[in-house]
């Protein structure tokens, strides 16, 4: 199975790219970085690949290679981008995981227990009618911009789509003979859901999860770009770009480089999703 997935070009390249990013981001301290908020105004706006003496605010001073140069406050762009990536990847992974879990729960209940279906689905319709970005913005405004709020605010709007997906799978298989047989054998409902119904939804859920991950990374970076995300001191790809705006004419790198990294990351996640859909969802292949 894994070998078959690996043989698919886009899946291989996008997962390698994401793996590389993960290693860089998790191991940020070992890849020639300074602390993301360490600043030295004497080194403001250095060009790429500059070797310079870095004077820490605490008085330490050492030579450092600024791979991608520095921003207006003399902070190392490479370091800020790697540490910022931690937030993006965390948001992508956590939001995907929780919206899949909660969405599956709603979808299973709604598809299997017909009595609550109507009510749950109307709620999901209402939730879907609020554009995800606007919903996230409002929640962050009310509850304050902490990482936990941000995660909840981006997760909730993704739930209805997952719920609908799982519900349609449940409706498709609940009349199958093997489910009826399990019901006739007085199998506990939970076991029926877990053993006989949920496995049918695994492949579409994995695919949906990658798209949610990409969307979550985009929304988080948009929020922090607008200044509505985590507090400005926290380096995220969006906030680095937002801070670089005032000097964009003279130093476009500070805005463009994190932008390119962000775009590459989202592209890799989306490509992974497309590849998995090609390989895991036989119905989709037949359709196109």
């Amino acid at each position, binding site marked *: 199975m894994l070998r078959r997935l690996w043989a698919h070009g886009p899946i291989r390249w996008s997962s390698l790219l994401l793996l590389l990013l993960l290693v860089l981001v998790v191991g940020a301290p070992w890849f020639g970085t300074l602390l993301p908020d360490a600043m030295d105004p004497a080194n403001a706006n250095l060009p790429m690949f500059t070797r310079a003496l870095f004077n820490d605010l605490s008085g330490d001073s050492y030579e450092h290679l600024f791979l991608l140069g520095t921003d207006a406050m003399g902070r190392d762009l490479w370091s800020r981008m790697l540490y910022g990536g931690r937030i993006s990847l965390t948001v992508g992974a956590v939001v995907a995981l929780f919206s899949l879990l909660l969405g599956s729960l709603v979808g299973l209940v709604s598809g299997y227990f017909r009595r609550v279906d109507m009510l749950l689905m*109307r*709620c999901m*319709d*209402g*939730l879907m*009618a*609020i*554009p*995800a*970005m*606007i*919903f996230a*913005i*409002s*929640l*962050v*405004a*009310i*509850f304050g911009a902490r990482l936990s709020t941000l995660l909840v605010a981006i997760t909730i709007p993704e739930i209805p789509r997952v719920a609908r997906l799982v519900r349609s799978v449940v409706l498709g298989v609940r009349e199958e003979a093997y489910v009826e047989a399990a019901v006739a054998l007085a199998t506990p409902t939970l076991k029926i859901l877990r053993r006989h119904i949920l496995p049918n939804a695994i492949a579409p859920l994995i695919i949906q999860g990658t798209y949610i991950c*990409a969307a979550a990374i*985009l*929304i988080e*970076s*948009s929020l922090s*770009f*607008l*200044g*509505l995300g985590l507090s400005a001191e926290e380096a995220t790809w*969006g906030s680095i*770009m937002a801070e670089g705006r005032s000097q*964009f*004419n003279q130093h*476009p790198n500070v*805005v*463009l480089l994190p*932008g*390119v990294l*962000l*775009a590459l990351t*989202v*592209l890799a*996640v*989306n*490509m992974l999703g*497309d590849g998995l859909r090609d390989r895991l969802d036989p119905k989709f292949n037949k*359709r*196109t």
Partner: protein
Amino acid sequence: MYIFVLRRILSTIPVLGIVALIVFMMLHLAPGDPAAIIVGDNGSLADIQRVRDQLGLNESLPMQFWHWLLRLLQGDLGRSIFIPQSVVSLIGQRIGPTFSLAGLTLVFTLLLAIPLGTIAAWKRNSWLDRGLMAASAAGFSVPAFVVGYLFIWLFGLRLQWFPVQGYIPPAQSLSGWLHGLVLPALTLAMVYIALIARVTRAAVSEALTEDYIRTARSKGIAEWRVLLRHALANAAVPIVTVVGIGVALLITGVVVTETVFAIPGLGRLTVDAVLSRDFPMIQGVTLFFSFVYVVVNLLVDLSYLLLDPRIRY
């Protein structure tokens, strides 16, 4: 058919009702007193009391919702906390730039995405098709603010073809209005084009496998006519559906694009409302955007009747 149209229109009522409930509850689920949140850290007890009275917070929750909903139905979204005007009139003042931007974006999108998607379907699995689909995947992945800054850098700063900031109302100068909107609209259109080109390609490819296409070709009908009249016309329903769903992307994009290009529209109003924690304003724009989204998708559903004569309800 009129029964269907009526029923479809009525079906938006529960959806809008749930939206209203969610938007109402957002503020009331917040930890602590909404009035204290609104007044902020520097407010005095008297300030809090004033806001409580203003928002009717001393009533029970269901009664508050009921009164709020009644005012909502009369088109009263409350008053902004910081600007001495009603939320409705503030939204009204900002609607022009946003609708101009969204309209031009839609024009760009339809002019580019549908021909590109149709060509990709026609030349399926060619290099052209692969190139277009790779570009579409990229367009889908680059956030609007990155696209915006790339455009500003290339077309604004390097080539100096377009202005990069601000908005000129059409009443003041029609050419200035259009000229200023080109870059923002292209920025906003990017993700929309990517989405619609993809769906057009899938829908047209499917239509091209049908028997009537073979018949049409064997009758010797010109290829462009087969593509337009037979394939594209039959692919209209899925394309229009995605145009409707994609409005959610457009709304997300508007918020970001208006900030990048300094356009004083609804998106900028939203961001400013959030930054100043102007809650009636936030509720107002959330309701407004959701309302637009629901209405657009209602129109999309109703358009099926025109697009596909087989659909008869």
